[in-house]
């Protein structure tokens, strides 16, 4: 039995080593996507450009403004409104002679996020420079608060949260796609029939597929993780072996999904057409971009049914919160259960395909 499982797994490796595009998809695309996202996020492309002017501006404004979130600029001789219209800055806070209590704010308004940011800076400055004698107290109030980080630390950014989630997403997406296409090709080539006429059982075929894809899944995880940590300098807290454990479970789930959906697809295009149905909702709802807890009730219930939700939680648990085996135990149990269930369904589906 082992020989048959082994040769099926080996055959998958033979097929892929010549398929340069698939190899690029598996190994290169995640690196490119992540590098782009990191570059975008880290360059502070969302930074708010603001100006503080007016006869009432006191020295001491700059240290109060939170570093990185706002870029203070000078508008020179231009009027506040002109500077915002011209796009020099997003917002201008004008402090009149009487003091910050009478300050006025002009914002561009097209980005609610930055508008909110500008308002917060304004409130901060009003507190700091609110009243003449209370200035010193005000400035003291506006100092950064000493913060204790239970997990991660000040050096962690959105990039790190995203990286942890994308690691899982890439592996499930690619294993689903490649295994679904693999089975469909076998069906159209006629080799699936040859397998059925051979001593290999359906279970052995499925195990062979798992073996082949596990190799690629782990290889991808190791390379991508290595790239994240080594080149992109993604911060991480925990045991990376646990990361690989989660990735392994995701490979199994991905292959099982590929098996199941290959039986309802007539050709490779149809398997691809299912991606918006199977993968995209998981991206949107499993917490990759927005936390699950912030989802509307109905979607939240749905999120708890998706495997990716638990994988993302586990990956972030390990990489950001430094969780150990105990910390992600629940996620692992759910993932194991999903893997076993989907694999059973997938095996039955494959076996029932009458040629």
């Amino acid at each position, binding site marked *: 039995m082992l020989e*048959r499982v082994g040769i099926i797994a080996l*055959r998958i490796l033979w097929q892929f080593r*010549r398929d340069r595009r698939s190899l690029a998809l598996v190994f290169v695309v995640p690196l490119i996507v992540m590098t782009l996202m990191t570059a975008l996020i880290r360059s502070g492309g969302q930074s708010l450009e603001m100006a503080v002017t007016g006869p009432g501006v006191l020295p001491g404004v700059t240290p109060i403004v939170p570093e990185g979130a706002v870029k203070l600029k000078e508008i020179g001789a231009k009027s506040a409104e002109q500077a915002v219209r011209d796009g020099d800055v997003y917002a201008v806070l004008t402090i009149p002679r009487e003091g910050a209590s009478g300050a006025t704010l002009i914002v561009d308004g097209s980005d609610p996020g930055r508008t909110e940011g500008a308002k917060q800076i304004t409130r901060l400055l009003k507190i700091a420079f609110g009243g003449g004698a209370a200035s010193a107290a005000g400035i003291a109030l506006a100092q950064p608060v000493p913060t204790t980080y239970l997990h991660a630390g000040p050096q962690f950014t959105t990039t790190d949260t995203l990286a942890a989630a994308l690691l899982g997403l890439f592996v499930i997406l690619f294993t689903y796609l490649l295994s679904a296409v693999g089975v469909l090709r076998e069906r159209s*080539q*006629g080799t699936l*029939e040859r*397998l059925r006429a051979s*001593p*290999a059982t359906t279970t052995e075929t499925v195990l062979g597929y798992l073996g082949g894809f596990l190799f690629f899944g782990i290889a991808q995880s190791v390379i991508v993780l290595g790239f994240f940590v080594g080149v992109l300098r993604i911060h991480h807290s925990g045991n990376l072996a646990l990361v690989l454990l989660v990735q392994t479970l995701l490979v199994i789930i991905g292959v099982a999904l590929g098996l199941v959906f290959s039986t309802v697809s007539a050709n490779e295009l149809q398997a691809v057409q299912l991606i918006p149905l199977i993968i995209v909702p998981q991206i949107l709802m499993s917490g990759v971009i927005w936390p699950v807890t912030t989802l509307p009730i109905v979607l939240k219930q749905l999120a708890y049914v998706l495997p990716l939700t638990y994988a993302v939680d586990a990956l972030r648990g390990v990489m950001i919160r430094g969780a150990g085996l105990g910390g992600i135990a629940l996620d692992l149990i759910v993932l194991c259960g999903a893997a076993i269930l989907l694999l059973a369904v997938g095996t039955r589906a494959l076996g029932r395909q009458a*040629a």
Partner: protein
Amino acid sequence: MAAMVEAQGVVLQFGDRRALDGLTLTVNEGETYGLIGPNGAGKTTLIRAIAGLIAPTGGSLTVLGQRMPSRTVAAKIGYMTQLEALYNDLTVAENLRFFATLFGMAKSVQRERMAELLALINLSDREDSIVSTLSGGLKQRVSLAVALIHKPRLALLDEPTVGVDPELRLAFWDYFARLAAEGTTLIVSTHHLDEAVRCDRLGMVRAGKTIAEDTPQHLMAATQATTLEEAFLHIARQDDGMAGNEYRVSSVQNTTP
């Protein structure tokens, strides 16, 4: 002689279509059995049922003593389809190696066996070619090699010489004769009567039933025909008469001797 394949009133229903309608035949061990009949008569369906791919819906089908479908005899059967059924993105050698291992052939004998079969199909110099780069005819040859790579006791060959040039066709049948001499049972479906004449026994299949089963010589004698073609046309017309239908005989075409 022990029976290698025993079909007793085999019925195979696909929805509302009866592909096999109470088919009875016997293939004895070690013999070369030819399956003749019009397209759509059920030859391919029968071969696939013997290979264990589809289960009869009625009657009984026994192969090597096992009721089909059964996986236990799978390793002893070699099956060649009309579709080439090869891994198009792998080389010839990789395909052969894959199926040899899958059917339980020891690694130590694989090399030699592969060389032997590559020589038979005349593709020794193309073993590292990717299958998708081969022409249809070459692919078919590889398909035959894959069917035989593991030295099966029963070889099921569905029209193995379609589109094969006369010289190679002769080489194939000389190889089949060698296999037969080694004790392999062959079931070959063909439209070429010069091949049918080389079989030990023939089974003529029409509309899902066997209408004649005997050695080529007996068939010719029984119909007082001088050629096998005549014999078949006679039998077919008789079958038409007995069934009382207007079916036009279009079987036994392409009788290039």
